[in-house]
């Protein structure tokens, strides 16, 4: 019997099979990536509606004569994918542009459907003519600049720069220490000392405030102490007679005030006496 020729199998040629497999592989990858991109877009849209909220800045007097400015950033992520590698830098500046401090947060992760709260706190030493001093005594606007680097849904690095202005209520707004006219009482010289300010902070001031009257030669002429219980928004206005040391004149000197809150004493910058 004559040969009928080399038998040819019915399966497609090898090159054809490889090409077809590659084509199918490409289609599957394309479909998966489109589905992934679609879900990322949806999640990002959801996340964009929640985004970042910053809580109002508050101040509190802390030990070692510092004032601590604190607040927080809340980042909710209602989307499906995590916000990972979150690194946040927050820079605070007062209304004259003086840099108060920078806080760095992270790296951290906010899972899909989760919320992350990132507290920020900057401790500033209170010194004469310092930025911290102005925070104590002057209402102002604080510029909050935040820079964040995150990776969304594993593949999308995002950088966010956010600048906003927060009003700052000074806890001793308009602080004034004034000396009245000296008078003679039982052979001693007595001078009335009046302390006034408004508490524009969000916290109550409870404790005591002490003062010392110094002469121009920095001799201690006398002093006194007031109880302090000032509610937020309230005005403090107290006067107390101070018996001056014999021969001590406060003219040209200064008044040194300090407050004691929860056992911690913070000295105010000296107030010159005319």
């Amino acid at each position, binding site marked *: 019997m004559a040969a009928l020729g080399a038998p*040819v199998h019915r399966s497609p*040629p090898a090159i054809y099979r490889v090409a077809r497999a590659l084509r199918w592989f490409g289609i599957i990858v394309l479909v998966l990536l489109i589905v992934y991109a679609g879900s990322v877009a949806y999640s990002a849209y959801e996340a964009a509606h929640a985004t970042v909220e910053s809580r109002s800045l508050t101040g509190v007097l802390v030990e070692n004569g510092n004032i601590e400015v604190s607040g927080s950033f809340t980042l909710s992520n209602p989307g499906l994918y995590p916000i990972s590698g979150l690194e946040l830098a927050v820079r605070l500046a007062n209304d004259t542009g003086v840099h108060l401090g920078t806080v760095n947060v992270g790296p951290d992760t906010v899972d899909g459907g989760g919320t992350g709260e990132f507290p920020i706190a900057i401790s500033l030493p209170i010194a004469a003519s310092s930025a911290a001093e102005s925070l104590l005594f002057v209402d102002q606007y604080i510029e909050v600049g935040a820079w964040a680097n995150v990776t969304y849904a594993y593949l999308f690095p995002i950088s966010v720069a956010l600048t906003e202005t927060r009003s700052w209520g000074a806890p001793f707004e308009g602080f004034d220490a004034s000396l009245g006219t000296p008078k003679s009482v039982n052979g001693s010289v007595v001078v009335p000392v009046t302390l006034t300010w408004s508490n524009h902070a969000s916290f109550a001031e409870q404790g005591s405030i002490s003062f010392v009257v110094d002469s121009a030669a920095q001799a201690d002429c006398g002093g006194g102490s007031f109880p302090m219980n000032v509610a937020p928004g309230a005005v403090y206005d107290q006067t107390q007679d101070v018996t001056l040391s014999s021969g001590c004149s406060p003219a040209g000197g200064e008044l040194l005030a300090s407050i004691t809150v929860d056992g911690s004493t913070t000295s105010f910058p000296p107030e010159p006496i005319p």
Partner: protein
Amino acid sequence: MSAPANVTPPASALPYRIPSLAYRILIAGFRVVLAFVFFVAIPVAVLAYVHSRGVAIPISIAAVTTWGLLLLILSAARYVLKPTAAFGPLSIAVSGVFFAYLYYLVLLSPYRFVLPGGSASLAASYSMFLEILMIVPAVEILAGILTTVEDVAHPGERLPFDYPV
């Protein structure tokens, strides 16, 4: 004398039926319409919406339309000419244009924009995603090369498998 049952005919002898040119053009038209919605109309609508909200867009609407239409035309031609030797080269061309389109988009990354009101600015990088997506046209180019080689070496051999009865 009849052939033994275990011997099969050569591939070139396998039955196949190539749809008529008119039918292929009709189907290609439907595919173009469908692809137009996904690759041109929806992206353009999204970009126009974002632009209307005062947010800068990462790519011009004209560029999306041009690249999209170029891809659709080449894809339609590829489908219509699938039974011919032009299928392989056209597959390479379609995937090449797709690859170039993605590369063009990579060059535009990151997408920088400022939110309405100017309080926040964002820079979103999507190049990593696009680089992964570039695997698709790269693989398709390879498949096109193999198809071209197949058509040159064995013209018509794939037709029974592309158009089985």
